[in-house]
């Protein structure tokens, strides 16, 4: 029996080293076709003008840290979730609160709006993702119609509806992502491959709508085929946890924000990292990133309470925005690109334009 255990250990070690050496070869292959840097190509692009972005709305009402937010397709409503278990739907243009739900758990780390605008999904330390249909009927209790959809074995870190109200994609601290049928709660596909907690995901805006990217505590960003469950591409250049991933609007690349204080751009066709957005004075991790409509600007919220605006092509920082009084935990550009919203541990959300 003892010999058996030893054999097992040896095999594990040799497998690990084989994986490492193959990864090394992969990096060599990727480097072969890298003939120019992005900022070199971008030299002939006109520099952006001075940016004056200000807080245009401040949403106050959460009693604790805001952890996540998502825009509605109507370009003005948002849903936000907080550490105290509250999930609020706001018309952020008028700053009115329209719905509020109290989850049975604290740290609601993920929330999302359904494409129809008629439902929201949320979850966190309860290890589940639940869907609440939105109702204006005063006699109805929103919590009563709640549907438990996803079940993970650890906290829910991110969730997103696919093209319809009927499917949800989730990411979890248990190291997996999963695709669920909302109506039945059935698991349609699961995605294994991360070596640690998965912290974020984003669906690809591609024509065939088949892939998504996820980032995790294992410093890896992985692109998945939704149909087969297989990982189609993986990138491992960050030096710490990846907190946020977001596709470039064309779908040919994606950006990531990490605890190593950098944001990086990965091109899917070149199959490599093509840009790093960092500055010596930026020490704290980037918690969330999003692109402006044209992909020219990258907005990133950081744990040092600031938001940095990057010129995606030239690689330079265009602007730094102050205002939040605690770490920025979530950031999304509105669907029509007229503004972006940031949520923070200072209990507020801000809309900037």
């Amino acid at each position, binding site marked *: 029996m003892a010999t058996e255990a030893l054999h097992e250990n040896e095999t594990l070690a040799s497998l690990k080293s084989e994986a490492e050496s193959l990864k090394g070869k992969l990096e060599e292959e990727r480097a072969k076709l890298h003939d120019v840097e992005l900022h070199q190509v971008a030299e002939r692009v006109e520099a952006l003008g001075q940016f004056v972005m200000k807080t245009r709305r401040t949403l106050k009402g959460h009693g604790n840290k805001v952890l996540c937010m998502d825009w509605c397709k109507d370009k003005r409503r948002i849903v936000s979730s907080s550490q105290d278990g509250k999930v609020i739907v706001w018309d952020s243009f008028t700053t009115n609160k329209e719905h509020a739900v109290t989850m049975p758990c604290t740290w609601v780390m993920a929330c999302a709006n359904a494409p129809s605008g008629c439902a929201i999904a949320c979850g966190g330390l309860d290890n589940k993702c639940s869907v609440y249909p939105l109702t204006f009927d005063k006699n109805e209790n929103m919590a009563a119609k709640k549907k438990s959809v996803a079940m993970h074995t650890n906290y829910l870190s991110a969730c997103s509806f696919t093209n319809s109200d009927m499917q949800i994609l989730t990411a979890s601290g248990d190291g997996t992502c999963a695709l669920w049928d909302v109506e039945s709660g059935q698991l349609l596909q699961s995605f294994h491959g991360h070596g640690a907690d998965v912290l974020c995901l984003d669906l690809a805006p591609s024509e065939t709508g088949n892939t998504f990217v996820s980032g995790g505590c294992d410093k890896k960003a992985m692109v998945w085929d939704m*149909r087969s469950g297989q990982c189609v591409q993986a990138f491992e250049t960050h030096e710490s946890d990846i907190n946020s991933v977001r596709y470039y609007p064309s779908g040919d690349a994606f950006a990531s924000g990490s605890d190593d204080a950098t944001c990086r751009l990965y091109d899917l066709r070149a199959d490599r990292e093509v840009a790093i957005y960092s500055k010596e004075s930026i020490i704290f991790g980037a918690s969330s990133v999003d692109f402006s409509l044209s992909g020219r600007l990258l907005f990133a919220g950081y744990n040092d309470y600031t938001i940095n605006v990057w010129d995606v092509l030239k690689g330079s920082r265009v602007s730094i925005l102050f205002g939040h009084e605690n770490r920025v935990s979530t950031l999304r550009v509105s669907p029509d690109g007229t503004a972006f919203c940031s949520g923070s541990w200072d209990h507020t959300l801000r809309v900037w334009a």
Partner: protein
Amino acid sequence: MPHLRKMERVVVSMQDPDQGVKMRSQRLLVTVIPHAVTGGDVVQWLTQKFCISEEEARHLGAVLVQHGYIYPLRDPRSLVLRPDETPYRFQTPYFWTSTLWPAAELDYAIYLAKKNIRKQGTLVDYEKECYDRLHTKINHAWDLVLMQAREQLRAAKQRRKGDRLVIACQEQTYWLVNRPPPGAPSVLEQSPGRGSCAASRVHMRGDFYKQEIEYCRRALGRTRVKSSVCLEAYLSFCGQRGPHDPLVSGCLPSNPWISDDDAYWVMNAPTVVAPTKLRVERWGFSFRELLEDPVGRAHFMDFLGKEFSGENLSFWEACEELRYGAQAQVPTLVDAVYQQFLAPGAARWVNIDSRTMERTLEGLRQPHRYVLDDAQLHIYMLMKKDSYPRFLKSDMYKGLLAEAGIPLETKKRVFPFSRRPRHSSPSPALLPTPVEPTAAGGPGGGDGVA
């Protein structure tokens, strides 16, 4: 926590005798404290070292003070960086978060006890509460706490006054960081479950590495595109979309968030009779862009109707509904699509090549949500490569482009202090579900009524 290491590197270089911040001796009442720096010098050093604005330097300096790496010599109650003559000192590495974390309850109890003994009434409200709570909690070891406190006070008396003052400030700062007063942000707080990322919950068994190996082998064989080609694509994409990006180029008549006027949203509503010029232009950027816009899609459907190929788009829409529909609906939807589009003699038969049709019909024996993927892709490509370019060259599209208007910029407000009333809009959750005439239903799925 990589940011802590980085902050430590910064404060170490700030203490460099040649390149660091100017050190001076600071007089506090009758005591002289050596190796002090002023808040203003700290800000200036950061500005120069990192080539950043003063505002950013003040923010960075404030963050260093909040984490206790730089502590105030006067008024150590608040960890705030004053960019003037206010004196500060660098925290000794013994008290760094990376050295001495997490802070122990016992140590906090001893600290509070010392404060209490040294001078009755120095404990602030929240400290008194903590003290009482700890007393109850560590009641069994309270004698030890008091003994330690007295011993530390006695040892401190033997030091020079300057040293005593400095140590007291450092201790106070350390506890302000590790036990912040209620209402103050705790800089050391983490998201739940993150601290233990090193201890992976995913078991690194043989399977995990085998999966990685398999992935690497597949990846080594993939075709890659030269960087220059990929990067050029970004330039043209950003260049093309720039004028359509409100945050880069502004938007007409005005950005609703800035002007408080929602005219922009009214003019660009999903189903509007007269789309703006920019919007109609976007339909020419890519086939996906055209289909994603309900108005664009509707015009394209009209165009296809004129060419008697409207069933292609309808088929594609039906396939989308299958792919993103409820699991329980799959068999019904597959059957409906088959009957309407694929069966021999179907009312809206779509023209798919024979090989794809064969594969599809084979797959239909065991219907699942992806069973129509091949056929859908074939029809999508047909529309994209054939109908779409013709649509863009058509009189219909050219006419729409010519008709489409550019909104006038909203005039600046004459009375800047009167705020424009912000109109509310009906929530999508209130709107009745649109009823689509096509058999397989419209895009989006509405509220999924069975």
